């Protein structure tokens, strides 16, 4: 359980880090929190020749709200997401879900950028990124590009990120105060990888019918998926128990989650149906509820 030999580099600036990645090519690997990469290196599932440590790039640690969204620097730790007053007010599903990442000590070190780039199919933040169709900012030495989360994740542990690129920021939209939201996951033990998960945002109109609905599922496929297209026809109805059942059925239609030692395909489908029902219920209860804290002061930008 010891990693293979590698050459260590610790750039002081993003520019320097990107220059190193140009030189190391396929042999270079970025390390941020290391909470997924180092276990893989210890088990020799990963053997990078060069390790480019970006932990000194303090410019990539911030939570910055603007008009329609919140920009989060890729080096922001999960614990910082969990405690953020800005996120609790503007995008509360993020701190709520961040609490379920690994364990307390893991969350002190793991980063949002690392979670996205690692693209574990069970991970919490990629699921939220797909639900909210977050925008990712990706830098290389001579280019900076944006990509939506729904295009970023390609397959299990595989993203569109190239060896010479670094993910620098994740932009989440604001969840309006009158919008309901919910995140749930099912795991055998606290801190384990989720076997299935679901996340939802919902808006109701004045007569209590669903006006907007977004739903994303984890553990249903090789990547977190949005099932918005499958459930679009249910918009306009009241979110009662029968509606929730019908939505869950439509959401899971045609899905075939993997079967492994932890759970069969049918187990995963059953738990997904349960989890979807829970997030729909909680979202509908939260929608339109006056939130007393809305008037409270939100800082302009958080120093992390």
């Amino acid at each position, binding site marked *: 359980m010891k990693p293979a*030999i590698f050459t260590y580099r610790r750039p002081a600036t993003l520019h320097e880090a990107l220059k190193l990645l140009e030189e190391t090519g396929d042999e270079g690997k970025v390390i941020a929190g290391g909470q997924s990469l*180092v276990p893989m290196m210890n088990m020799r599932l990963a053997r990078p020749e060069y390790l480019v440590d970006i932990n000194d790039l303090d410019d990539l640690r911030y939570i910055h709200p603007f008009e329609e969204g919140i920009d989060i620097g890729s080096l922001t730790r999960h614990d910082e997401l969990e405690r953020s007053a800005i996120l609790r007010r503007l995008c509360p599903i993020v701190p709520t879900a961040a*609490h379920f990442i690994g*364990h307390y000590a893991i969350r002190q*070190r793991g980063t949002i950028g690392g979670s996205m780039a690692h693209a574990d199919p069970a991970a919490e933040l990629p699921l939220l990124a797909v639900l909210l169709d977050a925008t990712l900012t990706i830098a290389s030495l001579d280019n900076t590009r944006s990509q939506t989360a729904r295009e970023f994740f390609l397959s299990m542990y595989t993203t569109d990120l190239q060896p010479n690129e670094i993910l620098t920021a994740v932009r989440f939209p604001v969840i309006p105060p009158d919008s309901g939201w919910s995140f*749930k996951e099912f795991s055998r033990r606290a801190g384990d990888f989720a076997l299935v998960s679901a996340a939802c945002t919902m808006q109701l109109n004045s007569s209590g019918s669903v006006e907007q609905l977004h739903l994303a599922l984890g553990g249903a496929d090789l990547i977190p998926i949005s099932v918005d297209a499958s459930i679009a026809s249910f918009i306009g109805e009241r979110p009662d128990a029968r509606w929730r059942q019908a939505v869950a059925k439509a959401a899971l239609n045609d899905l075939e989650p993997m079967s492994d030692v932890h759970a069969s395909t049918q187990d995963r489908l059953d738990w997904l149906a349960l989890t979807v029902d829970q997030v729909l219920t909680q979202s509908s209860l939260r929608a339109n509820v006056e939130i007393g804290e809305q008037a409270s002061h939100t800082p302009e930008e958080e120093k992390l």
Partner: protein
Amino acid sequence: MNEVPVTLWVNGQTYAVRVSPRKLLSDVIREDIGLTGTHVGCEHGVCGACTVWVDDRPTRSCLMFAIQAEGHAVTTIEALAQHGQLNVLQQALHEEHGLQCGFCTPGIVMTMEAYLHEHPNPTVDDIRDALSGNLCRCTGYQNIVAGVQKAARVFAQNSSGATSAAGNESTHLSEGGREYV
């Protein structure tokens, strides 16, 4: 084996060692610095036995290379007892029989000491949630929870309002269907 000089700051003391970049912080703390209170269990971040503080944040020392800790303050279990006197949490775990073989104990103390500073009034559920990252195969956790609760009460008595840790807005998140070990 491509050894490089690494300077570490551990428990307020400076150590200059020569190690390969691939050497884990946990191994350097134990083998090169000689502080064997930090235990090594699973070496992939699951068991929590190797938890130390890096810049006062609880961190798995098996998921960090020693060379990464250069320029940061590392604190190990050896720094908690002062002049041979157990600290509040250590004493409480002792009194409540919160350990049997003791292998997991250093990691539990380093995790929960940091946790209690941030969350001065934890519920039993909060404590169990925070403890879920530390595996103990002897105690069944009951006495560890009792010990942490006792320490939390002493912390609460000692902190006279104004001095509680920064950013300690106690979280009682109850999302998701979670089950404990």
